[in-house]
């Protein structure tokens, strides 16, 4: 199956070209967390990777429609718009009364959506919750003198958003793509925490291969910010986030001996267009890369801890390689899950070192972006495709003393790989691996 277009929203750019350029530079965005997060919680970690100004105007969303979509859904629509354009597909108005669109020349009944997300519309849920809990106290505080600062700190929404359910439900982002783009084939949401994006792409690949649809818009989206840092505190409370005495931009160091947790990202997303290779060629589309295989397993071990022997990670890799018809020696590059947590990187690196030849190149895109949870697998699949297309890979940032001697990329280097893997392992124990090939 061919990948013919991609779009991205990330802290390193909101278009594929700019994003990829920043990746090859080894760029990162690390800032101190918002002051309110630290005021309201006893936190170990004090850094995150904010998205910056990621929104842009698009005919797909009016001002009113934006207010009815969680940021994760808006990220998905922006990434999809770019992906379709880069795939050489044109959007045309289908129903101006609904601001509904369709892809010119594509049978909507044969086109599907496959989208991953870790937390769905958590942001919207928290907004609604904050209004309900704090609206009455607000009225009381407004009656008192000198409460302005407290009221400002509470950041209480003006009103209860009546669309809160439709904004919170995990399938909202996939549904928004289906509705806006007129995609009336399968519309599926994959909630596999940090593996969601990889699962979505893998299952889209399978649906295409099984003839369930002819075109898939697939990827992952996530938005993890709120005025009080609720998601941040949850990860911080279990010691998963990068923290310690190192300078802020050196805390995030996957596979390094001094790694100390992952860099919390505000989120982001990537959406890719998948279609049959021959059909893509017939319509003259540029093929970014091909998806050859997919493997998926579950640890059946623990909600937050990776099984220490890595048996199910190995099995997911074996299943993926078998599905793609590849041997380990065929794989020239692995885009690792590589979060930077001490236990996970150890298990992953050991499994990789046991399975692949010494020369297989490895990097971690999370060393640049931090962890975008449900979006990460899709962003990393995009990076894998770009690496195969351009024959060059980005550095694994802050990797000065690898614990396991894999052929890590320490700088942007040429990688002459014909085949590559992108792997994701989730809270909950889900393991997902995609095999990609360079376009022939």
């Amino acid at each position, binding site marked *: 199956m061919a990948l013919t277009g991609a779009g991205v929203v990330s802290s390193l750019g909101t278009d594929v070209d700019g994003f990829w350029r920043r990746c090859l530079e080894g760029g990162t965005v690390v800032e101190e967390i918002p002051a309110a997060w630290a005021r309201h919680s006893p936190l170990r970690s004090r850094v995150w990777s904010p998205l910056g100004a990621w929104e842009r105007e698009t005919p797909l969303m*009016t*001002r*009113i429609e934006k*207010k*009815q979509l969680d940021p994760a859904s808006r990220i998905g629509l922006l990434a999809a718009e770019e992906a379709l354009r880069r795939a050489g597909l044109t959007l045309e108005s289908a129903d*101006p*009364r*609904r*601001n509904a669109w369709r892809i010119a020349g594509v049978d909507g009944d044969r086109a599907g959506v496959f989208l991953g997300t870790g937390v769905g519309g958590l942001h919207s849920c928290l907004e609604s919750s904050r209004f309900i809990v704090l609206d009455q106290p607000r009225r009381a505080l407004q009656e008192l003198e000198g409460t302005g600062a407290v009221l400002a700190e509470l950041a209480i929404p*003006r*009103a209860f*958003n*009546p*669309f809160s359910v439709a904004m919170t439900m995990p399938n909202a982002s996939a549904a928004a793509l289906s509705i806006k783009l007129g995609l009336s084939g399968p519309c599926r949401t994959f909630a596999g925490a940090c593996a969601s994006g990889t699962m979505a792409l893998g299952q889209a690949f399978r649906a295409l291969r099984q003839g369930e649809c002819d075109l898939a818009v697939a990827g992952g989206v996530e938005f993890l910010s709120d005025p009080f840092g609720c998601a941040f505190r949850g990860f911080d409370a279990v010691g998963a986030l990068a923290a310690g005495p190192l300078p802020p931009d050196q805390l995030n160091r996957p596979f390094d001996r001094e790694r100390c947790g992952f860099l919390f990202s505000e989120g982001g997303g990537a959406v890719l267009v998948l279609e049959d290779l021959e059909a893509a060629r017939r319509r003259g589309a540029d093929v970014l890369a091909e998806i050859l295989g997919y493997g998926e397993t579950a640890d059946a071990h623990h909600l937050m801890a990776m099984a220490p022997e890595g048996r199910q990670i190995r099995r997911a890799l074996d299943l993926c390689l078998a599905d793609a018809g590849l041997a380990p020696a065929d794989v020239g590059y692995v885009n690792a899950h590589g979060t930077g947590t001490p236990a996970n990187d150890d298990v992953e690196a050991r499994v990789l070192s046991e399975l692949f030849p010494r020369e297989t190149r490895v990097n971690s895109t999370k060393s640049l972006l931090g962890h975008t949870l449900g979006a990460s697998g899709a962003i990393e699949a995009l990076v894998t495709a770009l690496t195969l297309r351009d024959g060059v890979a980005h550095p694994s940032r802050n990797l000065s003393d690898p614990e396991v001697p894999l052929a890590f990329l320490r700088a942007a280097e040429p990688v002459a790989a014909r085949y590559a893997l992108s792997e994701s392992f989730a809270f909950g124990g889900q393991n997902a691996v995609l095999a990609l090939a360079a376009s022939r």
Partner: protein
Amino acid sequence: METLDREEVAIRVRELLAETLHRDVGEIGLDARLEDLGVASIDLITLVFELEDAFGRTLEDEDIAGLTTVGSVVDFLVAGGAGGARD
């Protein structure tokens, strides 16, 4: 409570209706019935949310039940004044 100019309110209401229904403002006459403009139940929720935002008011269910034409929306807002526009 701030006094509202009827003409200004009418312009804003027609703009919000046009935006909600993806129509041109010119199609939204003051005499038009909301039902005839195609204001379905979800559109009405959107419209009320937008009116509340624009005019800083809270519309109760009994207020909403009385809104039958574009003009009736304008009259309601003018009669009640603004609670502090937040556009």
